[in-house]
């Protein structure tokens, strides 16, 4: 699953993530991170057989876990299917379908925001 983890300033110094990885059999992928002395947030992807247990553990350590279904959303009415966003995506989450409609696969998206910033019609919303 993909989720935003929110850290309070008090736990920034703790090695909760590495502890979680050691404790549970999971793949832990950091997609985006924004950490300041006043706390921080991290977009991560967690997968593996012990996914649920590991999330429970993270929550118990005081990290807020906000699962996300979507990272980006394309406004279908505004988008003109030009495709300018396609080659900017570092993980190939944007593709042109058979009928030349441009589709974004939010399962692959890592929320880097390149596409949103460069869309000429501002049709892509990035969920923060």
């Amino acid at each position, binding site marked *: 699953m993909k989720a935003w983890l929110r850290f309070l300033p008090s736990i920034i110094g703790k090695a909760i993530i590495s502890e979680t990885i050691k404790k549970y059999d999971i793949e832990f992928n950091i997609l985006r991170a924004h950490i300041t002395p006043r706390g921080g947030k991290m977009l991560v992807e967690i997968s593996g057989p012990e996914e649920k247990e590991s999330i429970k553990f993270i929550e118990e350590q005081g990290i807020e876990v906000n699962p996300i279904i979507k990272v980006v959303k394309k406004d279908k009415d505004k988008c*003109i*299917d*030009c*495709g*300018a*966003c*396609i*080659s*900017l*995506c570092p993980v*190939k989450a944007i*593709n*042109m379908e058979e*009928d*030349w*409609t*441009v589709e974004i696969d939010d399962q692959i998206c890592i929320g880097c925001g*390149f596409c949103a*910033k*460069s869309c*000429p*019609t*501002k049709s892509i919303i990035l969920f923060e």
Partner: protein
Amino acid sequence: MKTINEINQKIKDGDAVVVTASEMTEIVAENGPKEAAREVDVVTTGTFGAMCSSGAFLNFGHSDPPIKMARTYLNGVELYSGLAAVDAYIGAAQPNKDPELGLDYGGAHVIEDLIKGEEIELVAEAYGTDCYPLKHVETLITLDKLNQAIMVNPRNCYQNYAVAVNSTDETLYTYMGTLLPNYGNVTYSSAGELSPLINDPYFQTIGFGTKVFLCGAEGYIVGEGTQHSTDVERRHGVPTTSAGTLMLKGDMKKMNPEFLRAATMPKYGPTLYVGVGIPIPVLNEDIAASTGISDEDITCKVVDYGVPRRERPVVKETNYKELKSGKIEINGMEVPTSPLSSLKKARIIAEELKKLIEKSEFLLTSPIYRLPSRGYTLRPLEIRKPSILVRELESKPVIVTHPDENIKEVARKLVENNINHIPVVDEEGILQGIVTSWDIADAVAKGKTSLQDVMTKKVIIAREDEPVEVVARRIDKYDISGLPIVDSDNKVKGIITAEDISRLVGKKMDRGGESI
């Protein structure tokens, strides 16, 4: 041989055979041009691309008391008002006068909002005359209330275009979209085999008076567009780079917002996506053959937008089949491609035009004269006082340092020579990094001793063969005070500072030259 009149009769009778340019490609491939010419009467083309050179003449009607508008704004976007009293021309690429909105809401957006039927704020200022005493008006208008709103686009529908890449290690924001560093992506703008002028490369049927589909309404070609050029390299008859262009005219009041869209190329500016479809009457075998062109047979050039000169280096040739596959190969690497024009909309437009003709709602016109197909080359703008190249600047002997030099020693060099920047080079004089007096002060404060830890490794440079103006823009863009000058081997030849540049600008002004 068929004539346009005969084809029109067939259209009226509902007997005309109309196919899109993509369908025609298949028909010609299967049956050959001779058979295709017998079978098909009209081929429809389409494109939906960013066409900065678009705009409209608007007539607002007279106020009471009347005003001779001298400066006119619609939703904060300035129009050109040097026409008669209440006429103005709105250009799609005009940014908003409000820097906050700037590029995000420009002329193109006003045009789109007008066509959508929205209310637009009109502000006009005047100097006042005996016949036009009013000096200021402020009101709301809609498209309906205007007397005329005539779209006149001086340059649309480029016949082929360059394909863009970026060789530098900075992201570039261009009219060809965002270009990632180090050949990170490729962008292209033509619709390839669907594109109008590519299907009639010598303008055998296209000319002044040709009726076209323009943003959902009937439009007309009113001649060749600006920068029209014909004497270019061709492959299969089709130019391998930008060549012919069209000047188009249409009634904005009849347009459909589905076939036109305002856009902003990031950090470049507003532009208008314009949907154009042109019917090509298949009068003979020759025309059948040219409308049968396939993406694979349309060659285009991949050009390096990292070099901000008129003649940008050609990296390689490719074709639209490769481009549309989603990736091409550059220097042995697979690079993802992005179209900038909407291929989906281009197809919808070609289909739409086909339907209109089949329903006898769109008849073809015979042009009064055909677009010129030879004798046009592009002349560059000659600058009387040519750009000064970095190489030509007087540069003081450059003071350099080496990565293993002691910080104290570097500090001494800065002070003794009264300089602020010092390039770090290896034994061969090749640039490794740069250090400023600030870096040194910072290092001393933090107790750092190794130059390696202090120097900036990603150095912004000036190349010897670059015009000084290009370097000035770089200094502005990165907000830096000085950059090393390097030759083609990356050997440091000198240093250029913001002060050097302002001194140069000052000198140029004294000579009455242009400013940078």
